């Protein structure tokens, strides 16, 4: 009897296992994926004026692209990454490939790779990360006029939209190139960049790396500030969050023109022509800032630190302090020690040695003078320690830049950070933080 049951079960199982699944599809997976790739290829190359796309990087910046795909694995690209990429169309290669799903790969270097390049010097991101943006995209959905893709490494969202002829000609005619010159505001030599609108004077700070813009102004005696991200479109610059001050609202800057000779930007704001130009002093000098800066650390025998050294005449780290062998950072240390009965402040250079971080050499300054018009003036006392030969240029240039007879303004940029700006012409400054 038992045997019967075994046989019965066996039989049932075999027949059940034998149930033939009718294939849902009329073609094999390989045929279907080849068909999909061919139809995607057709769609990509079918756009006569190419495709437009907006990419939000993993670090939050918004970048625009224009792609034209040819049938021979060649792609032509514009991008508003910088003035060059917005003005010159670059040819490179692409291919469609079946990985776990159909994938569009920009397989040789072009503008889209600038965003994700792990070399921070390329895009201002961290080394090893860049702006966290893909160049290999899985194709999710293809509509007649748009294609939705997702990056395979950082999951960057990419939406290609069929471009109109006017979109393409805007790139070709240098409209985007001109718009991107808005970022030249950060190339104005003076620390203070300024414009006037509706009777109010604004300082403007543009950070091209994070694509943020800040406005600083005074309402009565109170200093106000506003920061937002921005992005470009065909007409100019768009503020992600509109800027509102009383009756003035700024959403866009249009008709942007950079004058390389005068280093000024002219643009339209709400049908007003506005000039952004350098200025050599704050809108209002923060009279107590120098004492505040000095006393904050003096009170607790601490110091201010700076990594990049002085920015002078448009050059970051003009004296190349970061290239001193083993350089770690610079410090300003009030009342560091005394020499011959004189208490001195120290501008010290910290380097990495076999013994760890070492404050090896520096310049001593007499106690600073605080002027009634809000400046701090340093006078040198002497050199402390042995300056290594390879650090001499960086050291002496930096040490003597400090003793600018016109002194420095201090601009508080955060709860524990200040910028120290040369009062002579505002074309040299150094960032302090702790």
């Amino acid at each position, binding site marked *: 009897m038992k*045997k019967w049951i075994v*046989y019965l079960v*066996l*039989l049932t199982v*075999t*027949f059940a*296992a*034998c149930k*033939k699944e009718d*294939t849902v599809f009329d*073609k*094999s997976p*390989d*045929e279907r*994926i*080849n068909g999909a*790739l061919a139809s995607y290829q057709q769609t990509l190359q079918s756009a006569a004026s190419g495709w437009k796309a907006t990419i939000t990087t993993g670090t939050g910046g918004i970048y625009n692209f224009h792609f034209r795909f040819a049938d*021979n*694995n*060649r792609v032509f690209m514009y991008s508003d990454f910088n003035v060059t990429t917005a003005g010159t169309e670059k040819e*490179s*290669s692409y*291919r469609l*490939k*079946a990985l776990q799903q159909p994938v569009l*790969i*920009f*397989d*040789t*270097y*072009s503008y889209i*790779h600038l965003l*994700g*390049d*792990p*070399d921070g010097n390329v895009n201002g991101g961290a*080394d*090893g*990360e*860049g702006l966290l943006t893909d*160049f*290999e995209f899985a194709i999710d959905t293809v509509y007649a006029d748009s294609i939705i893709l997702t990056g*395979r*490494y*950082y999951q960057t969202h990419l939406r290609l939209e069929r471009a109109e002829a006017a979109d393409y000609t805007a790139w070709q005619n240098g409209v985007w190139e001109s718009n991107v010159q808005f970022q030249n505001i950060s190339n104005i030599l003076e620390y203070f960049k300024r414009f006037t609108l509706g009777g109010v004077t604004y300082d403007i700070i543009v950070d091209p790396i994070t694509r943020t813009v800040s406005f600083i102004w005074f309402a009565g005696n109170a200093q106000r500030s506003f920061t937002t991200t921005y992005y470009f479109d065909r007409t100019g610059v768009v503020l992600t969050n509109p800027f509102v001050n009383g009756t003035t609202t700024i959403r866009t800057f249009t008709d942007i023109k950079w004058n390389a000779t005068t280093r000024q930007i002219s643009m339209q704001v709400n049908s007003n022509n506005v000039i952004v130009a350098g200025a050599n002093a704050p809108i209002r000098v923060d009279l107590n800032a120098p004492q505040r800066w000095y006393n904050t650390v003096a009170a607790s025998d601490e110091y201010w630190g700076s990594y990049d050294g002085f920015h002078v005449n448009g050059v970051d780290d003009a004296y190349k302090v970061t290239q001193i062998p083993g350089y770690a950072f610079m410090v300003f240390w009030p009342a560091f020690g005394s020499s011959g009965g004189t208490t001195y402040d120290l501008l010290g250079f910290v380097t990495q040695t*076999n013994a760890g971080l070492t404050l090896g050499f520096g310049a001593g300054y007499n106690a600073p003078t605080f002027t009634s018009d809000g400046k701090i003036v340093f006078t040198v006392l002497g050199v402390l320690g042995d300056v290594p030969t390879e650090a001499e240029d960086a050291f002496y240039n930096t040490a003597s830049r400090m003793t600018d007879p016109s002194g420095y303004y201090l601009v508080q940029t955060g709860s524990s950070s200040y910028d120290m700006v040369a009062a002579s012409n505002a074309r040299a400054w150094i960032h302090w933080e702790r």
Partner: protein
Amino acid sequence: MKNYLHIVIVTLFWLSLAGCKKDNITGSADDIPGLGGDTWTQTEIDSWLYDNFTKPYNTDVKYKWSQSELVDVNRFVTPVDEAKVVPIMKCLDSILISPYETVAGADFMRRYLPRFIILFGSAAYEADGTRVQGQAEGEGRILLFELNNFRVKGMVGYLSEDSVGAKRLFHIIEHEFGHTLHGNIMYPVDFKTITGSYTTNWYNYTDGQANEKGFISNYAMSGPDDDFVETLSILLVEGQTSFENLLNTISSEEGKTALAQKAATVRDYMRNAWNIDFATLQKQTRTAIERYTK
């Protein structure tokens, strides 16, 4: 009766299994996408590489992006700029292939040039902050990184400081090819004990500190194989005079002796294993490099 039934049931069972043979694979194996490697419309670069590397050396130079070519597939690396491909491969030809062919005969590189040379635009950044600039995997594959910054004399925008980067690449090429050499014929085992004291924390030492300990560079401290090929490649790229100058800067007598002994081992190895006159190879390589950097 029972037996009879038994046979019937077992037969039925086997028949049913046989009847179950599935025969519904449609399509042909030729349809499998990507089988035999990726294809694309050939360009001038492709035909140049075919004529100068694939045909003479059976070496496939891969410059189009493929994540799977990376040894560590979890790294985010960018592809190489097309404009750099031919200039870089021309350099590789004149600083590596030609010198070896001159001293070891025309067949040498046909036999030993790696089967694949794979090019990348950026470096591969490691979690510890170091950058991978070159890799040799087995003897068949050489990976070269950080090529988008590559500029040599005669290229648009070349500055004298670019020669540092160019020489770095030449060094890496010689280094990785050195791995191919010792992968085929091992260097004398005594080499490993000249200094010993290898460490995975090599990047905590400067080149100067490594010299004092008898290593030609800090990376040479990472292991005997790398020590050997670092010694080989720096002797080739910097030349004999520069090596002797380096020896004279070493204050530790022990370090100086050890490093000189390593260089001598390299020289003997090239003679005994490959019948290569090292001094000639050094001169040939150095002359080629100077053409690109001075």
